[in-house]
């Protein structure tokens, strides 16, 4: 898939009825109802999920939002895309 195609992909977080999110301290515990799997995640994953929301955003929109709302400035688009793919494989994020 070409980079420009990837940039058009809409990522959205799984809706609240699928994810049960409980912040603990630095770590956040997430129960994924569809798979029965518990995920323990660290920043910026909870922030990514909140920023994506169920409305969905593209890669660029997500980076912008993370920078504005959370002060998370990481210009590495490829790394972010890779993390999003991992989250998609686990079912926490879906792509349209």
């Amino acid at each position, binding site marked *: 898939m070409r980079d420009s195609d990837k940039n058009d992909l809409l990522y959205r977080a799984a809706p609240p009825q699928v994810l049960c999110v409980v912040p603990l301290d630095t770590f956040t515990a997430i129960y994924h*109802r*569809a*798979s*029965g*799997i518990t995920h323990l995640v660290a920043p910026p994953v909870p922030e990514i999920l909140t920023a994506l929301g169920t409305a969905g955003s593209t890669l660029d929109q997500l980076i912008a939002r993370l920078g504005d709302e959370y002060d998370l400035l990481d210009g590495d688009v490829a790394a972010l895309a890779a993390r999003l793919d991992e989250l998609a*494989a686990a*079912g926490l994020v879906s792509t349209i």
Partner: protein
Amino acid sequence: MARVVSDGWLLARILRAPGEAATLDAGGWTALLAIARAEQMIGTLAWRLQGTAMPPAVARILGDARASHDHGRTLALWEAEAARRALAPLGLRVVLLKGTAFVAAGLMAGQGRSIGDLDILVPHAHLDAVEHALLAAGWEWVKPDLYDDAYYRRWMHELPPLIHRDRDRMIDVHHTILPLTARITPDAAALLANAMPLRDGVAMLSRTDVIVHAAAHLFADGDLAGGMRNLWDVHCLLREFGVEGLVERAEHHGLADAVGRAIRLAAALYGDGATLSPGDRLCLRRVTARDGWGRATRPFTRLGFYIRSHWLRMPPAMLTRHLWTKWRGAGRG
């Protein structure tokens, strides 16, 4: 007080007529639960007995069994989804078999059913591609020894077992429903061609094929272990789908005898009864060989079936060689 029979028939009787549970005393309930657990059917029992009067302790135990089943169902459906994602790039849909198919389709046979591994059917021609796709998606071999692997690939109806490295769940990839060494060769291509879609990328066997498979699995794939659960599957599938076209389809696959026997045994155990041949009676004896403590009983009947099942799967010369090598390899008393 009449002596309650404490073998598989106790479980069958209650599943057939849940109202009869009212006559059980504490000892009867205890035996029933132990037998159900031993046959992997406590979830099924819990579903069947919903609404029936029972002591509070039993209600608690069965309530937990239902919750267990619900969770197992979630895990099984997620495995199916994971397989779908892995095979989608190959243009292959996942044809579900056994328990996972029943719950995915919301069938009676799936209510309360315990599900262990994910079983799927794929075309023989695509076996290598499927193997590679699954390995790439995180499944690994459950390391068998060298002899088993060669035997498996050459003669069996499925790939050697794979387990997912993160989720720790097994997947059995079938390319037909009976081993290649068996004397009967069902039409695998027809099974795939007639599979009915459940949702995008996911399917299950047709209404007649699913019953043929349940019968084949019971008689030819094992030593009738798990027979009570398997026959309950057959009973539920018959109730749900009926017998229209079943005999013709069974004959097409060469499994008319197996299907006929499955129908009779299921009716005898769970339905309205049937006229049984001596061979049928022996099978039933084997299938109900469980005591009130959940122990497997009737060892000689069971041994007879173990040897018979292997005989069905391979020609006698191969059988001797296989058992000899296995025995040497096992090294256990």
